[in-house]
């Protein structure tokens, strides 16, 4: 026997980098099966698409019908100043609540149904399990989110076409449209992290919606310039800046800085969720 024919035995107990990568691919596949096989995913995404496009069309149509109408001047001025932000801010502003709900549900239903035990028995390493779920969910929301934002943009700009001309080629517009889809993705992860921390559906959804809708109103009541400064760094407020094609006077952050702040909030919550997932009993 020559040494060339000898094959070194590969110990299955020492996973190589290749094995780890294959392992993570398996986790992604499993999480994809999980997410696509429940009705709440389908329904939430349908609500996201229908509400976003529906309200964008409604807003644009009402605006176009009342253009130059009585008392419409301030609104018309706002739209002329940043038509993209106006188009993306209405329908998607409502549709994003579906992303909040789905993000929270994706974690909390694991607990309410007991699937978390099956999941953790199959994947006892908590961090890869959470990471796989986050990657699959983010990819799904990114794809659907970009479809919704581009759809809303084209729909809204087509309806408002005779009053304001807006196209993807104008400065800041492509960034605002693509960025809004990105912000939806981060919002989904933000909601997912809160779902992982709170573990109860009602509590998690209430918290996410509270942070997105209620908190900015409360911090707006703070005295002096406090309100503006605190508000600028709130997750949803900061993340929303990316939807502005033209930076508004008084913005404390640029669109990408705002998006970065939103990402940092989300990353911190995901890290906390991962830490607690390791520590807490399932």
């Amino acid at each position, binding site marked *: 026997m020559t040494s060339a024919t000898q094959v070194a035995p590969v110990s299955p107990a020492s996973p190589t980098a290749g094995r780890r990568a294959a*392992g993570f691919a398996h986790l992604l596949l499993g999480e994809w099966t*999980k997410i696509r096989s429940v009705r709440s995913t389908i329904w939430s995404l349908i609500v996201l698409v229908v509400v976003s496009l529906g309200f964008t069309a409604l807003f644009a149509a009402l605006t176009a019908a009342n253009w130059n109408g009585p008392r419409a001047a301030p609104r018309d001025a706002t739209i002329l100043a940043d038509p993209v932000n106006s188009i993306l801010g209405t329908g998607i502003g409502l549709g994003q609540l579906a992303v909040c709900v789905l993000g929270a549900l994706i974690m909390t239903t694991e607990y309410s149904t007991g*699937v978390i035990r*099956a999941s953790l028995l199959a*994947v006892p390493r908590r961090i890869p399990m959470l990471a796989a779920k986050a990657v699959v969910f983010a990819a799904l929301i990114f794809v659907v989110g970009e479809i919704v934002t581009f759809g809303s943009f084209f729909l809204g700009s087509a309806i408002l076409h005779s009053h304001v001309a807006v196209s993807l080629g104008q400065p800041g517009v492509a960034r605002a449209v693509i960025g809004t889809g990105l912000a939806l993705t981060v919002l989904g992860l933000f909601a997912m992290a809160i779902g992982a921390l709170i573990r109860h559906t009602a509590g998690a959804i209430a918290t996410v919606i509270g942070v997105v809708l209620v908190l900015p109103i409360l911090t707006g009541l703070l005295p002096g310039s406090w309100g503006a400064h605190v508000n600028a760094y709130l997750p949803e407020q900061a993340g929303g800046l990316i939807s502005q094609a033209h930076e508004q006077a008084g913005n404390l952050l640029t669109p990408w800085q705002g998006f970065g702040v939103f990402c940092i909030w989300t990353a911190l919550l995901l890290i906390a969720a991962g830490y607690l997932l390791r520590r807490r*009993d399932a």
Partner: protein
Amino acid sequence: MIEARDLTKRYGDNTAVDHLSFTVEPGRVTGFLGPNGAGKSTTMRLILGLDRPQSGTATINGRPYRSLTDPLRTVGALLEAKSVHSSRSARNHLLFLAQTQGMPSTRVDEVLDLVGLHAVARKRAGGFSLGMSQRLGIAAAMLGDPQVLLLDEPVNGLDPEGVLWIRNLMKQLASAGKTVFVSSHLMNEMAVTADHLIVIGRGKLIAESSTQEFIARSSDKSVLVRTPDPARLTELILAEGGKVTDGEVAPGEAASSEASKALAVTGLAAPRIGELAASAGVVLHELSPRASLEEAFLELTSGSVEFGTHDPGGQQPGSQQPADEPGHASVAERSAR
């Protein structure tokens, strides 16, 4: 092989598992027995890495569960019946588990066949009966053809046919050299299933022995007799040198009715009691020899019942039988006689 060393788990002030150590050997069915709330499920969750113990270690084939790669290929576990998303199909539930282990989807169909759920594989699991959910849980446990199985109350909610099926499955797996660790709060069920018993109460180890030893130690060889004429029969038995006590201690059964009274007879075999009754013309409604394992078990764990009912007239053994499983209990009892 499963090894628990000095496991302790507290939830607030309540100590669910208290310095528990034991070893579960391969090649036999090991019954994990204890009253409700004794800490059986918690112990299993600790072994499976779902809960973290305050102290102690649990290993499977020498490794903690959380360090296993593709753990379903090593360990199969059935915990509470419902751990499936109600709107997910049985097949998709098993499919995601298989995918995380890098197993092909053909394995999913194999285990669906094994547990007899093929016809409903694409139905929403939310509509499953308790028995079907239990079968789905067993399918999940068998997915990776594991060397070690942990089953928490697997016969819960199953019909007699299902109980028999699980019993045979566990015996087959054990005889194939696998480690089978199965919990129950029913002594009689364990008596016919397990080769070895680990008995706990209030989180502490109470007894560990082979089932045979346990039975030999526990049986008091009494005979239960039911007759409408207890006075005459008692006279006859005492004359033959037997002893008679009230039969009220029989667990899970009505002690006496209007028409007949139950007597526990020791010192005489059942055939002799029958002959005596026949010769004197005394009518018998029942004549059954008992290996009163359930009683022995209750006696063993009576100091350690977490949720015992306190009857002013004394300990009520029947309270250990869950009221919602009459069919199951009677199957187990019958088979133990």
